[in-house]
């Protein structure tokens, strides 16, 4: 068996090295509609290819953790991360830097939503009566669907979500959080405010059944993060050119992939609040 495996390994190694020309590869956390992710980000890849004059490729991944791993393993050199995934990735890859964020990202927020049967209404804090209800986060690695909601629950109630609620689930993503709370499968949920707003605007949510009961204070979220060793591989000044290309992206069609109005400069220290919260909750060592 081992001989066979080695042969396969050797074959794949050969196949792998044939592709080792320095294609610049980027990825994005799968927090939006994944089915169109490939088509939408292909346009961004084309744009970057034109700006950078080098081959650029987008690869789709299935989870936040896979995005971090691909970045850490140097299989992608640039990634569109969430707040938490970006912080984690930069802890794992020395010299990597947050270089750009969406115009909206310094003031991102999460919504807590509730099924109408709970009788809860929008308020400026979460009511005591949410104790003992059922609650769903989004993905385990999401900033707006997990980290910040959990932080605020702990802050306001002094308990972990497991102690506070009758049941705590992880829906997997923001859209599914809406669907699960709308059907009452879970009574409460928390998610990315942009996904909620977009779903309401598209008429995909029955707002008679589910509504926003609280919005969190703002926090920094998504950002573009670059590895630190690019100039050595792609030539001097490459990092600066990538930064420039990202910041001057202004085609509405491209920006709608994120969806953001535009990009502004960012730095690692902008995400210090996220890192602190993640540490406090124990999601980061």
């Amino acid at each position, binding site marked *: 068996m081992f001989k066979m495996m080695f042969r396969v390994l050797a074959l794949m190694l050969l196949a792998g090295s044939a592709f080792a020309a320095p294609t610049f590869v980027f990825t994005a956390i799968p927090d939006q509609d994944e089915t169109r992710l490939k088509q939408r980000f292909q346009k961004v890849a084309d744009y970057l290819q034109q700006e950078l004059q080098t081959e650029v490729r987008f690869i789709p991944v299935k989870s936040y953790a896979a995005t971090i791993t691909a970045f850490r393993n140097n299989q992608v050199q640039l990634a569109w991360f969430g707040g938490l995934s970006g912080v984690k990735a930069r802890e794992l890859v020395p010299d990597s830097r947050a270089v750009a964020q969406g115009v909206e990202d310094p003031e991102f927020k999460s919504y807590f939503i509730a099924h109408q049967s709970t009788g809860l209404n929008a308020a400026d804090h979460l009511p005591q009566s949410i104790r003992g209800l059922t609650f769903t986060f989004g993905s385990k690695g999401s900033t707006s669907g997990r980290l910040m909601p959990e932080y605020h629950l702990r802050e306001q109630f002094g308990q972990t979500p497991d102690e506070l609620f009758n049941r705590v689930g992880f829906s997997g993503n923001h859209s599914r959080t809406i669907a699960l709370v709308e059907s009452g*499968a879970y009574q409460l949920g928390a998610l990315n405010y942009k996904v909620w707003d977009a779903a309401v605007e598209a008429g*995909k949510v029955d707002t008679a059944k589910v509504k926003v009961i609280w919005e969190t204070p703002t926090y920094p979220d998504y950002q573009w993060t670059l590895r630190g060793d690019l100039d050595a591989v792609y030539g001097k000044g490459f990092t600066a050119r990538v930064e420039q290309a990202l910041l001057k992206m202004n085609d509405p069609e491209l920006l709608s992939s994120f969806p953001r109005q535009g990009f502004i400069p960012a730095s690692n220290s902008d995400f210090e609040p996220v890192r602190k919260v993640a540490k406090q909750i124990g999601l980061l060592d």
Partner: protein
Amino acid sequence: MSFTEAMLSSLYRWSGGVKTSIGFVLVAICCLFIADLEVSSIDPWAEMWRLAEGLFHPSLMQSSLVLEALLSTLAFAFAGVALAVVGGFLLALMFHNAFVRGFCALVRSIHELFWALIFLQFFGLHPLTGLLAIAIPYSGIFARMYAEILAQVPKLPAQALPPEAGYLNTLIYTRLPLAWPHLVSYTSYRLECGIRSSAILGFVGLPTLGYYLESSFSQGYYSEVAALLMLFYLLIATKKIWLRRWTLPVLFLGSPFFLGDGMPIVWGNAWRFISEDIIPAPLRNSEAGGQWESLSELSQWASDIMLDQALPGIWNTLVLSQIALVVTGLCALLMFPLISRHCYSLPGRIPGHVLLVIARSTPEYLLAYILLQLLGPSMLPAVIALAIHNGALIGYLSGRHSNELALRSDLPNRRLDRYFYELLPRIYPSFLSFMLYRWEVIMRETAILGILGVHTLGFFVDSAIQEIRFDVALLLILTAALLNIAVDMFSRRIQRYI
């Protein structure tokens, strides 16, 4: 004679198989009292309506993408299973060795999805990730089954050989030919499982059907889900037509060409995974502290994980899988007559076949999600999803087995009598051994139901991987593996007792 004595003496006369079944049912009933089976949904019908509407209006997304996904699903399945057949057979020949047995139990006790998640760290999105994620656990499975099949071969032909006939001759001229039909039949069944596993690996990012299935499903594009599922059912249902002796070499040899290229492997990553990532955090971070200090930190670290994650995880996994196992058995016993030639004529069996293909090919994860909408979060959707999926699988195997039976000529005319007095007693022993094999599979599968807020061991493993804590993940995976090995040993004992 008092009533209890009468009960006891009648119990004494019952066969080991019946007693075992009663034991399992009693355990499951006890678990019912502990388990969280609350129904708490409120109004699932809007979403269910959307789902039904989608299922009746299947629409394919880009057909070129789907064709590619279909081909790579088959490619991973065939290449992975082919590697596993070779590996499994060699391991089966050494299966008398306790170390080999332990190794096989260990590798097959880890779910394909977890293997894939581990190899994603090594190789990233590379075909090798998917290939090994199937080949490694399947080697362990093949090793066990091949060893058992070879052990059941009559010994007389081997004894008839002259004493100087060596091990290899005995194997090639007596044991192998006798075992051949069983080996082939089992391998062909496993190929179907391989196709399912390969499709499901798409959930973690490999370019198989599961990739598109999960993406469409999570966005609520149910007509795309329907189209993909139907394609998948069709693939499984027509297996008999395209999986022939003469197509096999083509499929096996062709599969490596459809695995895709993926990203280049960086070997430093594999080394880092072994030398850093899986080293427990207190040891990895201890440079300043003395040896004793880090040792006490290590024990603190391990006991924290044990108390907060491993023990509750084991408990929930056991409770959930004991109930699911018994419900699975009931489902299987209800479903197998649908495809049995002793119960229905050929046209009459077609709906049964369709039902069983659908039930056994729909990933449990999808079933669990739909049931979550209908029943609310608890263990209940998990139990039902596992029972439908595994019940249909065992129903299929039992039905197939019943078709090989030649029944007595004075068969009762009424279908119900025939079922209870003839068919059921005849297939029961093999049904029970299918169930005992499935036991550890069900335990493994309880892992992927974190969406229900049910904290099984797999839920904690997934959390650790999502948090990029491979030291924790590895400790939990090993715990799960030990649990599986224990169940495996126990089920072997029962098997012998029956």
